């Protein structure tokens, strides 16, 4: 099966977050995922888009978010990029730690990692690229996170 690839350039708005979620749900359905997996994929993409729009681009109208989907026979690969300062994944607090449990934010990356099979966070001086992979038929041999 040839890879299907599509990408979007989006404004740093709340509408982008909703659009990204809806598009992810549609792409996941077309890739053959069941309803529960579609929910997880669309939620992971929503959280990634929230990070890009809020924390990366900080709603800056001059900065864009790019969202790309690639569907192969094995995987749905989703890449979202912002133009922010670059997210240092090592500094993200563990939301399950007792001291953080009652915090009102900081669960987005955790949820993404919980819902996707592979998550790579690649920060740079020109922004952050978040790559998420969901295996179409599942693969128990795979780890939750790719090597950094």
């Amino acid at each position, binding site marked *: 099966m040839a890879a299907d690839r599509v990408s979007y350039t989006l404004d740093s708005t709340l509408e982008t977050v909703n659009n990204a979620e809806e598009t992810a749900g549609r792409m996941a359905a077309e890739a053959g995922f069941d309803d529960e997996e579609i929910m997880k994929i669309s939620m992971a993409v*929503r959280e990634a888009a929230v990070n890009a729009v809020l924390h990366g681009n900080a709603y800056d109208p001059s900065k864009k978010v790019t969202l790309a989907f690639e569907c192969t026979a094995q995987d749905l690969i989703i890449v979202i990029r912002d133009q922010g300062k670059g997210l240092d994944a090592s500094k993200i607090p563990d939301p399950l730690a007792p001291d953080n449990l*009652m915090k009102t934010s900081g669960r987005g990356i955790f949820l993404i990692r919980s819902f996707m099979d592979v998550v790579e966070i690649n920060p740079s001086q020109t922004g952050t690229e978040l790559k998420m992979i969901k295996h179409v038929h599942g693969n128990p041999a795979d780890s939750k996170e790719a090597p950094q």
Partner: protein
Amino acid sequence: MTMKSSTRQVDGVTIVDLSGRITLGEGSVVLRETVRDLLSKGQKKILLNLGDVNYIDSSGIGELVSAFTTAKNQGGELKLLNLTKKVHDLLQITKLYTVFDVKDDEATAVKSFK
């Protein structure tokens, strides 16, 4: 679908019937303002009925935590009723299920308030 909220009183407990999505933006704001409004009126026994909440994101989870903490800090109690499977699962994986007082029967939930 955005979130809708309505309140009713049962034996001194304010039940907030929520429906739709609790997400970044409108849904979270509606929840925050509803709880703050109730607390400012002295209505400190709050039961959030989430039976018709079909979606919640990390911002919504944060708003639930905020509502719980705000009520507690003002001498009130906030409990959750009728979680959908999606919301239940989210609270489980974020380890918040045991933090919240979660009920699945309205009458029992109302009686459980001090």
